[in-house]
């Protein structure tokens, strides 16, 4: 009987979510200070995202609970650019308190999600972008883009796609050893070779020594929708993209 009680007590303890012990206004202010010094270079001054994901949305790629955040900030996230922060737990809890304060204040886009989804299909976005396994693969998969990018970043990507191009979508242009012009997205590159996806979504690998006029352009292949989508339709499309936050 004592064993059973102990077991139930242990299980119930284990099931309790970890709670942030540092959530006072002072903690949030101190967390903001640490965030601006140590996190903002990648995640933006207001956690809106940049090189690193948008942290203001309240949903996170690698777990949204306080316990997840504590682990990810303290230990870093293997396989990503997120380093370990090496702060004692109290300091990390303050950062989490600040992030949560941003979540509460996160910007809500004004547009209509359903109309935006229809625009996404009708304007040809699915030709290059995939959402939930449906669509093309030339452009970035947008299934979780609402967790990754701020509303403002999404808007900018539509009207000025070349403003922020991830290296994976840089375009290599050259003539191959037969003199044939080649163009493709750089999937990988080293001193001696380059691996590409061409515009027909075929994969190729080339020895660079055999190529002529090799150059890599850091501009987007996506056309600008600056003159095609304005006002309400643009807001709708942004709202749809911002809603792409699967649990």
């Amino acid at each position, binding site marked *: 009987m004592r064993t059973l009680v102990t077991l139930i007590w242990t299980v119930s303890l284990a099931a309790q979510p970890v709670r942030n012990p540092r959530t006072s206004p002072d903690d949030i202010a101190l967390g903001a200070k640490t965030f601006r*010094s140590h996190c903002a*270079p990648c995640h933006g001054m207001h956690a809106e995202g940049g090189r690193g994901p948008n942290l203001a949305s309240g949903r996170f790629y690698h777990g949204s609970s306080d316990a997840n955040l504590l682990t990810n900030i303290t230990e870093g996230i293997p396989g990503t650019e997120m380093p370990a922060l*090496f*702060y004692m737990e109290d300091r990390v809890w303050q950062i989490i308190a600040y992030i949560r304060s941003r979540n509460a204040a996160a910007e809500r886009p004004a547009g209509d999600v359903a109309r935006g989804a229809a625009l996404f299909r009708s304007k040809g976005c699915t030709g290059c972008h995939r959402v939930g396994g449906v669509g093309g693969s030339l452009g970035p998969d947008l299934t979780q883009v609402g967790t990754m990018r701020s509303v403002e970043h999404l808007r900018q990507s539509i009207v000025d796609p070349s403003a922020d191009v991830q290296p994976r979508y840089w375009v290599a242009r050259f003539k191959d050893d037969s003199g044939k012009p080649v163009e493709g997205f750089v999937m990988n590159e080293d001193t001696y070779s380059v691996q590409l996806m061409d515009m027909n979504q075929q994969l190729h690998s080339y020895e660079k020594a055999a190529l002529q006029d090799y150059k890599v352009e*850091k501009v987007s292949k996506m056309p600008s929708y600056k003159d095609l989508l304005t006002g309400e339709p643009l807001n709708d499309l942004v709202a749809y993209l911002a809603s792409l936050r699967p649990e």
Partner: protein
Amino acid sequence: MRIQRFAFTCLAAICSAVLVYGQVTYERLLNAGKEPGNWMTYSGSYPSWRYSILDQITRQTASRLKVEWVYQMPTPLMVETTPLVVDGIMYLTEPPSNVVALDAATGRQYWRYRRELPNRINVCCGQVNRGVAILGNRIFVGTVDAHLVALDAKTGAVLWDVRVADHTTGHSITVAPLVVKDMVICGISGGEYGVRGFLDAYDVATGKRRWRFWTIPEPGQPGGETWPGDAWKTGGAPTWTTGSFDAEQNLIIWGTGNPSPDWNGDSRHGDNLYSDSAIALDADTGKLKWYFQFVPHDVHDWDATQVPVLVDGEWRGQPRKLIYWAHRNGFYYVLDREKGTFLFGTPFAKQTWAKGLDSAGHPIRLPNIDPSPEGTYIWPGVQGATNWYSPSYNPLTKLFYLSVWENRSVYHKGEQAYSPGNRYIGSVPLIDLPEDPGHGAVRALNPQTGERVWNYDLHTKPWAGVLSTAGQLVFGGSDEGHFFALDAETGREVWRQNLGGIIRANPVTYLVNGRQFVSIAAGSALFTFALAR
């Protein structure tokens, strides 16, 4: 010539056989350069040339290099080890702080020392280790929980284990120790945690500390005036890359790291001695004989943790004891080794922070180069134009070889208060810029002029050191996982192999049973090459 080489190989093989059960004496370490079958100190010899007189593998034969064996390490951590090889046995470290003894001809294991570590380890940049030192029948290793351990070279059994510093306050040891006489010289890491740096000497027999040189003087000591208030207590200046030994002058010459906090110098106005410096210590007492500070009041994290290359040569027509030093800040320096005086300096990579160096070697800083809240773009980047990975000097070509980064970072300035065990850095810079990732090279310099003799371009920035040999080869590696051999005179590539993992280590070469081997760590394995039979 071929007959001479054959005779030399036979002699070296006989020596190796005779010495199989011999002990490593201080005399052998002093003359390590004359014992090419072995690699007995971190840089191959006390002057740290990372050069070998072995010449089986040459520009003509290197195309026949094949993998002889591979040793896989059961670790997800970064491998930065430089192996030692003594009398047919290889001693290398596995991260975080383990040691392995292998048969150097086959890669088969004799023993393995596994370090038990506390749960929380405070290291800035990975739980890494760069190698061991050896004397007698003892192997010495520093640990990331800031201990120094002596192991039995035959079994791996612990002979003594001393606490060098408190790991909970950010001290750790990643450096390969250096044996000098009957002492183990060992540095400390922790420049991102506000430690007060030092260099220690320990008795090889007992582990008792002989001396400690604090790299930050106290108030009232010479140099103490370069720190305001209590900033000296948390000022950094660690010693995390192995230095060199000038036996004739009895000087240990070692580089020191950045002042803390790294990117905000507001709490430490002044030159912050002896951060970012070359220091020369009396080997017996640990007393400072001279210093040269490369970057007074550094706010860019440009440690002087490069390997000092000691050369007795001519300088402007006169014989002189020299140090060749390519610094993380993008300048190549020549120093006088007797007094530490500056003789010459010039950029070896793109830099945008200094107009040049004055007659004393002090940088003439350009305006607006300090980190700022909005970010300041400066070449070189945070990881420098070069870093801890080793350079090489080849007495045949009289060239200085090194791995170079051509890149910039965005230096941010933030606020920072010290608290023990927490990072103390003053912001996080954008070290690598996705839109402008930079590139790398292996470069040969004329060490007398700093002029570039040749350049081997790399698409990415290398973390691998270089090794040069009497076979007129320079071995180097890349972040892309390629290990390559270059013509030491021209930089022409004569051989390369994709090892499939990032190379963050220094190559070594040695001889077993008359065959020359070359080893380098890549990914989480150590690869050893020899000419195909």
